[in-house]
């Protein structure tokens, strides 16, 4: 891909987010140009971008509720326009909470249709961080369907990661429409079967959901923290852990792609396709 045709990514920096730079780095590694834009910039600037990333962190320090305050900010008007135009939008962790609170996801009836509520964990409270495997959904309308049903180890780090809703049958409906893009699963891809594989009590083990059109993805785990092989823990179960061990002693191998890289590649490819069509 020539430099001229690289899609441009905007990483939106709400006050208090803290994963903006590594998220931009992961997008660049996947072939995009990426800029970090403050929440209060002139929002007409955003029309020039082809894809959008709402990074993780603690926008407004999770005051009132995670994502609640940022979800009301004016810059989201520009994001709404981009969504209408079909541009890819990814919210990671706090970014996912913002997308849900803003009503962009799941986008069935419109408005706020679900919550990413405080974790429910049998033997702990509050924040929880570790690694889990995600089973991706090859049938989803999301650009992340390009992951093709693969099982990816990804780190998560949150106190509020439990997808839930009081709209009757919402998750069944989302499941039928393929909007459940990724679920927590065992290392071999089989169902989580509850805690602790499902680390937060999320309904139907949901880790990521897209909107109806598929261009917006809200996910709780952090793919930007596993975009390089060197970021994978050496003793992780399964294929990726084995690869990490095999790479010991080779800096070049550790600089190779990690499990999260494919997600960014899929997103950037979707932006390119849209741009060229």
């Amino acid at each position, binding site marked *: 891909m020539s430099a001229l045709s690289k899609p441009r990514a905007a990483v939106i920096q709400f006050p208090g987010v803290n994963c903006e730079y590594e998220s931009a780095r992961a997008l660049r590694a996947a072939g995009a140009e990426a800029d970090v834009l403050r929440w209060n910039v002139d929002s007409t600037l955003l029309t020039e971008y082809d894809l959008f990333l709402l990074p993780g962190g603690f926008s407004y320090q999770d005051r009132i509720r995670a994502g609640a305050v940022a979800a009301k900010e004016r810059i989201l008007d520009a994001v709404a326009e981009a969504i209408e135009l079909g541009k890819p939008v990814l919210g990671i962790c706090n970014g996912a909470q913002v997308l849900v609170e803003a009503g962009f996801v799941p986008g069935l009836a419109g408005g706020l249709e679900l919550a990413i509520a405080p974790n429910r964990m049998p033997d702990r409270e*509050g924040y929880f961080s570790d690694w889990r495997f995600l089973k991706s959904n090859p049938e989803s309308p999301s650009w992340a369907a390009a992951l093709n049903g693969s099982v990816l180890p990804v780190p998560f780090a949150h106190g509020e990661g439990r997808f839930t809703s009081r709209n009757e049958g919402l998750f069944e409906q989302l499941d039928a429409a393929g909007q459940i893009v990724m679920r927590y699963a065992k290392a071999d891809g089989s169902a989580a079967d509850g805690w602790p594989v499902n680390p937060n009590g999320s309904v139907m083990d949901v880790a990521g959901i897209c909107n109806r059109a598929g261009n917006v993805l809200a996910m709780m785990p952090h793919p930007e923290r596993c975009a390089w092989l*060197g970021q994978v823990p050496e003793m992780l179960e399964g294929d990726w852990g084995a690869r990490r061990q095999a790479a010991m002693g080779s800096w070049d191998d550790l600089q190779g792609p990690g499990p999260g890289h494919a997600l960014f590649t899929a997103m950037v490819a979707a932006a390119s396709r849209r741009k060229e069509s």
Partner: protein
Amino acid sequence: MEAVIEVSRLTEAELAEVLSKYSLTLKLDEARKVEELLGRAPTLTELTLFDTMWSEHCSYKSSRRFLGENLPTDGPDVILGPVEDAGIVRLGTADGRSWGLVLSHESHNHPSQVLPFEGAATGIGGIVRDVYCMGAEVVGVLDPLRFGDPNGAAARRSREIMAGVVDGIWHYGNALGVPNLGGDLVFHPGYDDNCLVNVVALGLVPEDEIVRSRVPKEAADEQYDFILIGKPTDESGFGGAAFASIILDDEEENRGAVQVPDPFLKRVLSQANKAVLDLARVEGVPIGFKDLGAGGIACVSSELAEAGGFGMKVDLARVSVSSDELASRVIACSETQERYGLAVPRRFSERVLRIYNEEFDLPHVYPGACARVVGEVTNDRRYVLTRGDEVLSDSDIEVVTSGIRYDRESAPEVMELPAPVRESNRDLGRDLLMLLADPNICDRSYLYQHYDSEVQGHTCLRPGEGDAGVLSPFMDNPLGLAITCDGNPWYGERDPWRGAALAVCESVRNLACQGGWPLALTDCLNYGNPEKAGPFGAFVEGVRAIGAACRGIGRMTEEETGAEPNDPIPVISGNVSFYNESSRGAAIPPSPIVALAGRVADISRVPGQQFKGAGNPVFMIGERLDEMGGGVYNRLVYASKGGKLPEPDFGKVRAEALVMIQAVQAGMVKAAHDIAEGGLAVCVTEMILGRRPESGRGLKLELPASNLALDIQLFTETGGFVTEIATDRVDDFKALCARHDVEPYRLGEVTEERSLAIAAAGAAVLNLAGDELERAWRRTLPDLFPAGEGGTS
């Protein structure tokens, strides 16, 4: 109208009453000394200012002499020794630039005892500001934590404090976006009334972008402004420095001194600071930058100016305050969090204000937060503090910053305790399981899972995966850095010299497991009341021991940094925390905590601590000696702290560490772990279970021939290493050992099955399945965080 205190006209009783009325902790003779120095009666604001500046916390009035005499602080690659809030040492060249590693270490002990959540949180806040204000990115923090016995007399309170402190650390630290690289967690009944919450921060800064905490020399030729940035000044934290320097009478009092933490504002401020520092750099504008800590505006403005050889005029009427009712001395000296002081040329001020107030919109991020010009640099070396037309202080600036010294009486106490009478024929497998379930040994994963260790994306060894945290911060270069912290109160209380020396030894071993060369050390010296000869003597012994260990072990070798093998490990920053005791009179065990930063030439060679490949040979370095004193085995089995302590033999530590560092860097090592608390048996169990027990391998171990009893061989805490070596590198490893005159003891080999089998002279000593080990090791810590019994956050 500002009150003037006519000190010399007051009787002792009257002066004591005045000091008490204004909650000043100055001693009577110190108050008289203020008047003497000024050559006139001090104003109330001045007396408050000196009260802070001369507190033990700020002035090191008892400790400074000993620190200077004993600690090596210099080296060919030391860029900034312990003169400002953080020290800087050269890490190396990567991504086309030379990088400085910034290290800082602080305590927030008393505030955490009173308000665990806020105390721990503001502790992190203060330390990262120290690093940010050098122009550095903060790339990691560590939390060395010491709490009371969770099953002892103050069990409930100790557990509540721990839960509150951990909540404070994650609420604040995770929000800052700085990875937590672990630290450690120790329980001891000596902390029942006085927990220790230390925090270490490390940063990275390109060498040519270091910002100093002083007004630059260009201020002689051009008018400089003093800009105050951040939260509106309020009464929170007023008297904070003095608070750190008194003994807690009753933990429920003293609330005025604790501040309200706000990681959100801090994160936005750090982003805005970055924009300002970038702009100054691009335009070539020299600036001075310093965070506000103890002593507030008065302290930061006077120190910035004095360090550059200038004077300063500050007008408190221009300060953004939470309430107009605040007394002048409160505005001048309050320790309100999340503030910085900046000295910039006047022509540059407008643009600085715009970045903070408009681009980053501080007033909407926090009510009343802003950047404002509140003073100006002067050439006359006077320090002038006004509030509008009213002059609150006007003196030579050296008078304000001069400090005060004390000579204290020192009488260290060493506890000679005999070894307990040992039983023979104990079930050593049972004993191991008992040790694994002890709060001081058990799995820390439950704690680490509260922390964000992966933000920024550079972490390659997370807490619990190895003896040190390792970062790989560069894109085009395998250069990495490793950091660890150590300090064992069970040794310190027996012998303050050995306790401190052993802390340095263990930190060197921790880095060696990751192939890290020791670069620089930072310490937090936590002791009791320095006005008493015992605790003060323990402090003096601790300082001497750290100095001796840094010299005795030395830098070993390291071509890239220019250091010579015999250069001492430099101590580039640190902190002294005295008065750690309760009104009940017991001092904490002498608790020097050291953090050692190291340079890892190629992070791809860094091994974690877990065993990897079945069939790989496992070696031990470090002969087992009868050094069970202060150890966990004697404590649990015989309720005894007695016996001989491990001997800190610096030459041996150095030779053994050299072997490990070079073996790791040469790619021979698959796994490595140092032998410490709980001895060899606990060490190898941790290598089986590690941070990811589900992927654990096993070990079949035959103890090397020894005259010692089996329990001593398994559990003595003599330092050393256990390491898994690649099968095809065994000869290289043995040759390396021979070169350094170190004996490698072959222990056995890694097994596919997750279990531990130990034999001696062909006979089984213990056989434990992985599940048994895991059950004993994992459950204790979660149970110490009882749901519903934690403190309010």
